[in-house]
């Protein structure tokens, strides 16, 4: 082999190597952003959280019943991730242009709005109108969604919840307690129960939100329904004395041991289980808990022994006890790219049938109209449904208007607040700092 040809070969080889390397680099570079080309979906893929079983079970039974034809055209495929990993998963999928057809839209409305702003979410209001099913949504649910999502219908109301305190009627009667109407009465009842060796409240400190919901409850009752909107708008700060007062009240409950031992280690299921097995007298929860209360396997105290009361009034406060915190559960939405005719058929079927199905099978109240009359499984379900229809003004929850970081900071520090490792002032300061950094 002559020197020249070997050099030429070497030059070709290095050119080839360089070319291959740059191709590989380009491939790596493109990997992150995704091409985002619109391809018709093969499945009615639905990404949900492991903790929520109601929606996926109801959708599965719809796929075998009323929505069979939609399912034949576009089969339902459910995938779940732990709720704590949902936001990460969504951000990565959105970055790769690989969002499923239908998905839980993030733990905080802020993320959903971000997705909507970048055009990843279908314009549901227009789509529902197009499909002729916009009248299948309860107006109250629509207004709650709009209050949460900057005036737009960005998610579907698979749940429509109000929140309050579920209590064990048997324990209340046995201890001569009346349903507390004010905060002071609630605290007095808790003291009485604690003295008798009964744990007054069960709450999941691991989730954090069942504790921060108590803070917002107190804030709405003491400062009125705009308490947290003022914080979001910058008119007030969480470190203002009247706001710190709410955290102080909740911390005091923890200090007295009303949440039981090791509240930071209690997960959602354990908290629910403590109440449903009669180990705790009260549980602050949303009406989605009716699904658990109606399930005889979980509910050992019996649904007839469960009562529901609004968050009590605070003496001299500006709020009223008929203002219920309401939400639509974990917002579920549809991707813009994959919304085609077959997806439309699914959405239309869900809008018409989901309300009755979820109520009948799971005792779960949604924001879809109940088109087939369903007899309530128990009294407490009827009570909650009546409360929802009678409710005139709704309020949001503590983190509803926070960004993702402030939401996480608030929920991960809540257990520290009630266990005493963090003072109320410190807690509110930490959350306010996260809010200000947004």
């Amino acid at each position, binding site marked *: 082999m002559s020197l020249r040809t070997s050099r030429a070969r070497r030059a070709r080889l290095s050119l080839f190597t360089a070319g291959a390397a740059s191709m590989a680099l380009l491939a790596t570079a493109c990997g992150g952003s995704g091409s985002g080309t619109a391809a018709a979906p093969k499945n009615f893929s639905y990404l949900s959280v492991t903790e929520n079983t109601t929606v996926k079970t109801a959708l599965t039974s719809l796929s075998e019943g009323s929505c069979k034809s939609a399912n034949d055209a576009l089969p339902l495929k459910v995938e779940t991730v732990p709720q704590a990993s949902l936001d990460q998963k969504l*951000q990565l999928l959105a970055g790769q242009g690989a969002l499923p057809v239908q998905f839980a839209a993030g733990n905080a409305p802020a993320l959903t709005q971000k*997705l909507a702003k970048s055009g990843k979410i279908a314009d549901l209001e227009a789509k529902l109108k197009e499909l002729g099913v916009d009248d299948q949504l309860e107006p109250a649910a629509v207004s709650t969604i709009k209050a949460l999502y900057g005036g737009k219908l960005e998610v579907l109301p698979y749940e429509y919840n109000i929140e309050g305190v579920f209590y064990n009627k048997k324990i209340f009667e046995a201890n001569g307690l009346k349903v507390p109407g004010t905060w002071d009465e609630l605290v007095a009842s808790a003291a009485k129960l604690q003295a008798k060796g009964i744990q007054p409240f069960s709450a999941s400190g691991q989730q954090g939100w069942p504790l921060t919901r108590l803070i917002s409850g107190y804030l709405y009752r003491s400062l009125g329904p705009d308490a947290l909107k003022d914080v979001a708008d910058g008119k007030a700060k969480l470190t203002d004395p009247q706001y710190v007062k709410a955290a102080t009240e909740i911390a005091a409950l923890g200090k007295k041991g009303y949440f039981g031992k090791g509240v930071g*280690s209690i997960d959602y299921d354990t908290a629910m289980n403590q109440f449903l097995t009669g180990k705790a007298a009260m549980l602050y929860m949303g009406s989605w808990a009716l699904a658990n209360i109606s399930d005889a396997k979980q509910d050992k105290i019996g649904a007839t022994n469960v009562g529901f009361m609004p968050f009590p009034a605070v003496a001299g406060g500006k709020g009223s006890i008929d203002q219920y915190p309401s939400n639509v559960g974990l917002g579920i939405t549809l991707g813009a790219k994959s919304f085609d005719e077959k997806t439309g058929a699914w959405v239309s079927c869900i809008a018409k049938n989901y309300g009755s199905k979820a109520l009948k099978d799971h005792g779960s109240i949604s924001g879809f109209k109940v088109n087939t009359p369903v007899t309530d499984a128990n009294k407490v379900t009827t009570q909650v449904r009546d409360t929802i229809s009678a409710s005139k003004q709704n309020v949001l929850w503590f983190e509803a208007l926070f960004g993702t970081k402030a939401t996480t900071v608030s929920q991960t520090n809540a257990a520290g607040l009630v266990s005493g*490792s963090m003072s109320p002032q410190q807690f509110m300061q930490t959350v306010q700092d996260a809010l200000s950094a947004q």
Partner: protein
Amino acid sequence: MHRVLGDRRAIAILLGPALLVYSLIMLVPMVWSLGYSFTKGNSIDGFTGNGFANFSRLLDDPAVRHALWFTLKYAVVVTAGQVVAGYLLALLYVFFLKRASALVRTLVFFPVVLPTVAVGLLFQKFFQVAPQTGPVNSLLNAVGIDSIDFFGSSSSAFWVLIVMDIWRSMGFYAVLLFAGLVDIPEEVLESARLDGATGLRLVRHIVLPLSLPVLMSSLIFSINGTLKAFDSIVALTNGGPGNSTTPLTLYMFQTSFTYGDYGYGSTIAVLLTVVCLLVSLVVFRVSRRDLTEG
């Protein structure tokens, strides 16, 4: 052989593929990440230039200061614990158990092969106070001490984390150091014994200096591993209570992927890289001096 390694083309051919793979999976993401630290945004919103804003934010962020302090504290304590416990175990194998050490070595090594998440869950149950009282609290109750919520306060959560990580990895360091100790010639030990060096004196003047190189390697391994600890902390405390056991790695992960702030997350990654580099430099310096002296 000399001719082959003296030839530049041969070196290029031998190193080329490895260098290419290394560049693609290590250097490119590192440079990329450095680039991100000058931007703001995430994969949904897109990225915009942000100058040095992320770096000035890094200096003012109390959470970063806390995470950095926790990372260093954790790395020092766990490294010391792992290497000291490993060394003591290795001494035990070589000088007391001798040939019978195989079974004990296997048992102590066992946690190393367990998945970190499983160990995390195991320790969670071990130290839990609710919903069931864990074995540790049951033991405390049995001797008349009230249950402790180990994961409810930052200091107790920190110590549970330390105990878990030392337990999990001391078997590895024991085997590593054991290999170093068995290399010490029996004649040297014998002559030292004849000169009257026994027990602690033998260890201090003969065994320790002769096993210094392998001890230094263990230290470098350990400190670099613990500075980047992530999985064991996520599995046991997930950074809690609050953010009190959040190291830089976890804070970086949360910032980038939970809060969707890739730019600032990358800036934290840069800080972590600098810390790792500095610590490695210091350890290398110290070890080189010691080795030449020894």
